[in-house]
């Protein structure tokens, strides 16, 4: 590890100003950054701790019934949040899968997003919830769809001096549910070989009126699965529909072979996990699923 300067940013303005300096890295929970500093993968000159900035440290209801999650809020706080448990069950699933409890007590949602690992567990769950990223920078604030934040493994589309302030989740439809599942050889303390999130909304006849599917660890960034979504929308919520969407999802992905699994194995897992995630949504909607 190289020596570095450490400072705590008290306000958003401080953080934006500091972020402009060359060699500056923001620190939230540090569970990615500190490990990367130890391995020499990152060598910051300045480390700016954003955990105490009020906008980044709170979870709040928005005016239109949605939820705004501060970027620096840690996974275990999110796991305890009632709105997340009830309305964003997929996100609730995902934040409890990050590392161990020790890691969840530090790991922030913003860090999970901004570290931009293709395997980040919370990201697919956020994407299916139509999350927006609220970004602050020297030129002011902007808001983009979360899936547009990723540029490649470890890279975001944040420009020089920008930081993630919060993630805004719109209020989900009335009859709608989400789920996130991942596959790892160990039950916990492992990185997703494949992760799959799904959200479906259904009408009174249990026909699917809206669907989002997102995948982790199957492409250079977390991705939406448009073919899977197309297979769902307008179809009845049934085993056959879920199976068709699961197969379609395989065509949405471009997995590679690495130490965690071969491309071929990942493709198999995509279908399994998408199907199981959809089944979990159905369970959460109390739907009787026919084949």
């Amino acid at each position, binding site marked *: 590890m190289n*020596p570095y300067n*450490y400072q705590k940013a008290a306000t958003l303005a401080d953080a934006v100003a500091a972020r402009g300096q060359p060699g500056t890295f923001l620190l939230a929970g*540090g569970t990615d950054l*500190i490990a990367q500093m130890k391995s020499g993968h990152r060598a910051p000159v300045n480390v700016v701790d954003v955990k105490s900035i009020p906008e980044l440290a709170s979870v709040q209801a928005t005016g239109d019934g949605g939820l705004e999650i501060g970027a620096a809020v840690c996974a275990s706080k999110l796991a305890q949040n009632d709105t997340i448990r009830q309305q964003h069950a997929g996100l609730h699933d995902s934040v409890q899968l990050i*590392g161990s*409890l020790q*890691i969840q007590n530090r790991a922030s949602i913003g860090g999970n997003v901004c570290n931009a690992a293709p395997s980040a567990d919370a990201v697919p769950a956020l994407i299916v919830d139509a999350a927006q990223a609220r970004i602050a920078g020297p030129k002011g604030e902007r808001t983009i769809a979360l899936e547009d934040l990723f540029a490649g493994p470890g890279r975001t589309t944040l420009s020089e001096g920008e930081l993630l302030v919060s993630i805004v989740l719109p209020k989900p439809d009335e009859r709608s549910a989400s789920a996130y599942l991942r596959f790892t050889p160990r039950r*916990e303390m492992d990185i997703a070989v494949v992760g799959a999130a799904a959200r479906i909304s259904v009408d009174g006849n249990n026909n699917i009126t809206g669907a989002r599917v997102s995948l982790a660890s199957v492409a250079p960034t977390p991705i939406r699965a448009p073919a899977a979504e197309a297979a769902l929308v307008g179809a009845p919520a049934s085993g056959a529909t879920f199976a068709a969407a699961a197969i379609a999802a395989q065509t949405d992905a471009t997995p590679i072979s690495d130490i965690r699994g071969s491309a071929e194995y990942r493709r198999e897992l995509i279908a399994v996990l998408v199907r199981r995630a959809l089944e979990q949504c159905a369970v959460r909607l109390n739907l009787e699923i026919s084949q």
Partner: protein
Amino acid sequence: MSSSQKVVVTCRVNGEDHTVLADPRDTLLELLRDRLEMTGTKEGCGNGNCGSCTVLADGVAVCACLVLAGETDGLEITTVEGLTANGTRHPVQQALIEHGGTQCGFCTPGIIMSAVALLNEKSKPTDAEIRHAIAGNICRCTGYEKIVRAISSAAETSATARAEV
């Protein structure tokens, strides 16, 4: 910053305030072990992967190897050394002794801190909850069952002690 320059760090460990001269690269783990000479907290991996460095920060379990020295200002840290009050061991410590839950002992302080964090939250955890609570702590000697039994019995001891008060 030159490689030998030191920084002043303040922290509160086991109820005592400390001001120490640290290397700017120190983590909380190095602060505890090398600067404060509190070596009860162990380093098995330095990367958040083994749990042997688990301490409580404001009451929740964290890996001391993934907290920077500078971040400790304002945190209330509890280490294994802070659990034995006036010669009386914490029920988790005593139960590990009695159930054979410590062998080489290297994972033990970390396991204890995870267990204490659990029991502070849940007074009567199930075996599944106990296993979940220590899933971030790798033990290579015991196979875990004797640790689970110990934590479970410590929960009962604590419950009895509370009932008697």
